[in-house]
């Protein structure tokens, strides 16, 4: 009898142990991009505050999907792009408002902070503050493909079979701009947006035979360009600058129709358990000297005021070569994506993928 009881109670205890996930308030579970929480920064933060940081690497879509699956739980701080906050928040309610009084706003570049606040406001509450920003455009081997100046040049016969891009929304937006459309102006008008996307779809299907492959990860693209199998591709600026360090012919080119500008932010997931540590982390990494360490790891500049002074000279030189002042003014910053737009784009992407 007692033996049976013991077995039953130990089964019960085991079940409890499996179900109850231990939560420690001193751990910051950070959902971020590669390079945004380099080891030296994490070590410094842990040493200074005594907290521990658990880093999970991801991308925009996966961050939102992960938070949606748990209703905003599992992480204490996430870093989606600023255009992907308002839509998912309205639709799924996966974030909680940021208390700006707990953030040292003097550490931020004011214009960038204001723009991000405006783009991430839902129902009068602010949900995001800026962290890292950059652009996407073209990575070109200027010796092998001197003619590639804009997204649509990727379809030119001279480079057929040697180009690559992602089959994702930045490609649709970039091609729309290069074709003389303004997709951002049509964001609020589903019919007009569908019309633009139809044109882009036709163009992408026409270009498909000349595409080597649709890349899906940064490292895959690096390999393709480094080996010379691909001479021109859509890519992030940092990818181009990294390749430039190995081969001076390859560099990032801001497209004639304008590079696409993104800002990755800090947001608090709705069921985060360590908000105070999250605020501490934000204030810590926005310090100019720490922000410079992140710039060195990620290759992108941050919204931290005065961090540029600490940045390495060769990175600055590459940045200035890719962005003459007029190209800098021509950057198209992503406005917030309205909920439901992804469905239209999804149909286009599926059809392009299926086309022969």
């Amino acid at each position, binding site marked *: 009898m007692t033996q*049976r009881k013991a077995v039953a109670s130990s089964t019960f205890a085991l079940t409890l142990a499996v179900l109850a996930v231990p939560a420690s308030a001193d751990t910051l579970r950070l959902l971020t991009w590669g390079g945004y929480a380099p080891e030296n920064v994490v070590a410094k933060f842990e040493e200074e505050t005594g907290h521990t940081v658990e880093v999970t690497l991801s991308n925009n*879509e996966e961050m939102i999907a992960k938070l949606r699956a748990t209703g905003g739980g599992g992480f204490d701080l996430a870093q989606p792009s600023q255009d992907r906050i308002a839509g*998912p928040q309205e639709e799924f309610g996966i974030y909680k408002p940021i208390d700006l009084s707990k953030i040292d706003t003097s550490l931020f570049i004011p214009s960038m902070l204001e723009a991000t606040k405006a783009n991430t406001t839902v129902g009068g509450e602010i949900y995001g503050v800026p962290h890292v920003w950059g652009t996407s455009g073209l990575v070109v081997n200027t010796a092998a493909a001197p003619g590639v100046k804009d997204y649509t040049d990727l379809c030119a016969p001279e480079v057929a079979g040697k180009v690559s891009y992602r089959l994702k929304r930045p490609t649709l937006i970039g091609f729309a701009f290069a074709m003389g459309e303004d997709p951002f102006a049509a964001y609020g008008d589903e019919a007009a947006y569908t019309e633009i996307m139809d044109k882009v779809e036709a163009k992408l299907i026409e270009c498909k035979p000349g595409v080597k*492959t649709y890349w899906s990860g940064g490292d895959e693209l690096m390999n393709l360009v480094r080996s010379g*199998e691909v001479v021109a591709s859509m890519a992030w600026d940092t990818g181009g600058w990294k390749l430039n360090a190995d081969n001076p012919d390859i560099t990032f080119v801001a497209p004639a129709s304008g590079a696409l500008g993104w800002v990755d932010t800090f947001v608090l997931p709705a069921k985060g358990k360590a908000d105070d540590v999250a605020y501490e982390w934000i204030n810590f990494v926005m310090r100019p000297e720490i922000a410079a360490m992140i710039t060195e790891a990620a290759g992108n500049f941050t919204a931290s005021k005065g961090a540029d002074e600490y940045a390495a000279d060769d990175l600055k030189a590459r940045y200035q070569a890719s962005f003459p002042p007029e190209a800098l003014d021509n950057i198209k910053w992503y406005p917030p994506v309205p909920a439901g737009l992804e*469905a239209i*784009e*999804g149909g286009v992407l599926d059809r392009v993928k*299926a086309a022969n």
Partner: protein
Amino acid sequence: MKAEARIGLILLLTPLLLWLSLLIVIPHIDMFLVSLRERVGVGEYRISPANYLTFLTEPLYLRTFARTAIMAMLATLITLLIAFPVSYYIAKMARGRTRSALFLLCLVPFWVSELVRTFGWMILLRETGLISTLLQWAGLADQPVEMLYNDAAIMVGLVYTSMLFMVVPLVTTLESLPDEVIEAGYDLGGTNVSVMREIVIPHATPGIVSGCIVVFMLSLGNYLTPTMLGGKDSLWFTELIYSQFIVRFNWELGAAFGFLLLLLSSLIVWGMLRLTGHTLERTMG
């Protein structure tokens, strides 16, 4: 005493039942409910079969499914054709250490993850890869040859990935066939072909069927191999499900696709069993 036995049975079954209900049955019910929702506005949903109708009315999705199913069947067939002689050699001709060594050779690639194996194939097949370079060095090609990013590359990857799952059941069933029976077949005047057709293959049928089912399901549900080796034309049904869930935030359609995959693949397996005159009970029992 009887009560004791029952408690024992319940305790033994509990982990299995917990596993099945918590990790398989409940998520599937939830998934089914999600697949019946239709988004009508921001955060607003209603119950409707719209997602299933989308699958039936959009030729793209039907075509993708058909393509995936046919490629998976072809992969199963090729795997069987390659694995059968290999298994026969291991089970009936090789002896002692050679046999263990051969079996181990089949096993070794599975000690590394599928991702690494697929990357291995990418290194071999790509334009600046090993095979292309070798061909040029041998003078058989005068410029780099691209062997990656097409259906043949997907097929190679799928067959390689599922080889073990065909070899193991085949070796097991072939081992259980006594050598004397084969000898008797020859003694009674059988030729190589007739012995194979009348004795070996009928005996190996349970292994062939179960191997085929496993390989077919594995190929149909594979995500990594088709996406990585297939490149721009790699359309695969699991890829559609992934992109609906992760990229498009359209869980409703993704869930419907998931269910359709489960349903249609079960249907195909059932149909194939009927077509070849087998039942699942006889194969597994």
